[in-house]
């Protein structure tokens, strides 16, 4: 139990945690929905949600996905540097806080397992939602399996090397 608690605490550090002092409530939450909508549109329009694009990527037969991920990372790096250099705050005036990730064996083993699944489904978790929205409703089954996988990991989190 102790180990599991430790893992839980570590994980809440390295995954998208909510660091706002005051939590968004009600209408304030809508901005995340809208951001998600825009994000989903980009996913579909750039065909990032296509199983074929992921096959092209892993077969090194197209630059498209490398271009998308690469330029997203470069944009992210520049944005975070700008935020740091100019001390940009949130719209609520809070200092921006980026949590440090701790190295765990899971990043190797879990990362590898996710890679296997990524090549099969042609989707990481984000595109799963966009595929369903695009009318590929059978992907609901994939999403359900992904939830089951998440649950099984959580259930036995203290049993896996970390």
């Amino acid at each position, binding site marked *: 139990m102790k180990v599991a608690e430790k893992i839980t605490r570590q994980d809440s550090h390295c995954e998208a*945690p909510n660091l706002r002092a005051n939590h968004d409530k009600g209408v304030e939450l809508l901005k995340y929905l809208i951001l998600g909508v825009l994000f989903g549109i980009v*996913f579909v*329009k750039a065909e990032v949600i296509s199983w074929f694009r992921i096959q092209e990527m892993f077969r090194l037969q197209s630059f498209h996905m490398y271009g998308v991920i690469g330029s997203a990372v470069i944009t992210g790096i520049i944005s975070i540097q700008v935020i740091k250099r100019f001390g940009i705050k949130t719209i609520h005036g809070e200092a921006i806080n980026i949590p440090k990730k701790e190295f765990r064996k899971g*990043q190797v083993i879990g990362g590898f397992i*996710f890679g296997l699944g990524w090549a099969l489904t042609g989707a990481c*978790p984000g595109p799963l939602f966009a595929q369903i929205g695009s009318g590929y409703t059978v992907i609901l089954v994939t999403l359900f399996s992904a939830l*089951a*996988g*998440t*649950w099984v990991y959580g259930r036995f989190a203290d049993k896996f090397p970390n």
Partner: protein
Amino acid sequence: MEWITQPWPWYVAGPLIGLTVPALLILGNKTFGISSSLRHVCAACVPAGIPFFTYNWKKEIWNLLFVVGILIGGVIATNFLANPNEIIIAESTKADLTALGVTDYGNLLPSDIFSWENLFTAKGLLFFVIGGFLVGFGTRYAGGCTSGHAIMGISSLQWQSVVATMFFMIGGFLMTHVMLEPLMKWVGF
């Protein structure tokens, strides 16, 4: 306005995806990460007293709204901004996949694999059930997916995320080049 229905090139889509990182930070100190939403759903629906799922998931509702938004974005893009033409796939990829038994190249996903008819078949078991499980299990074990590690983690210059991303790719290469062919034969392609 023709550009909007055409597929968007990587140099448009990539920077837009990258801008999600500062957008979430500035809108509310949120760290970009999508696979966490799966954990929050588990925590909300079947926590079963498991420590990993015992936390205040209501604080993370923003993350669930974000993924619902992605789904709605998919509906909008497909119904109102759709590309009228067939998807253009690299000829070499087409040749490789045809050799594996894929025949439908008209849409974003091949109907040979991704259809309800395949649900209760070995194909469905492999691509939906096992594939989905590996995605959910692997991302949680790794503490993030393409968004949390490859984009957010590397954007904030964390080497741990570079390691995770390398292993995402190693897993993907191994599946594509070594395991996919025997697996597809096994499920009846």
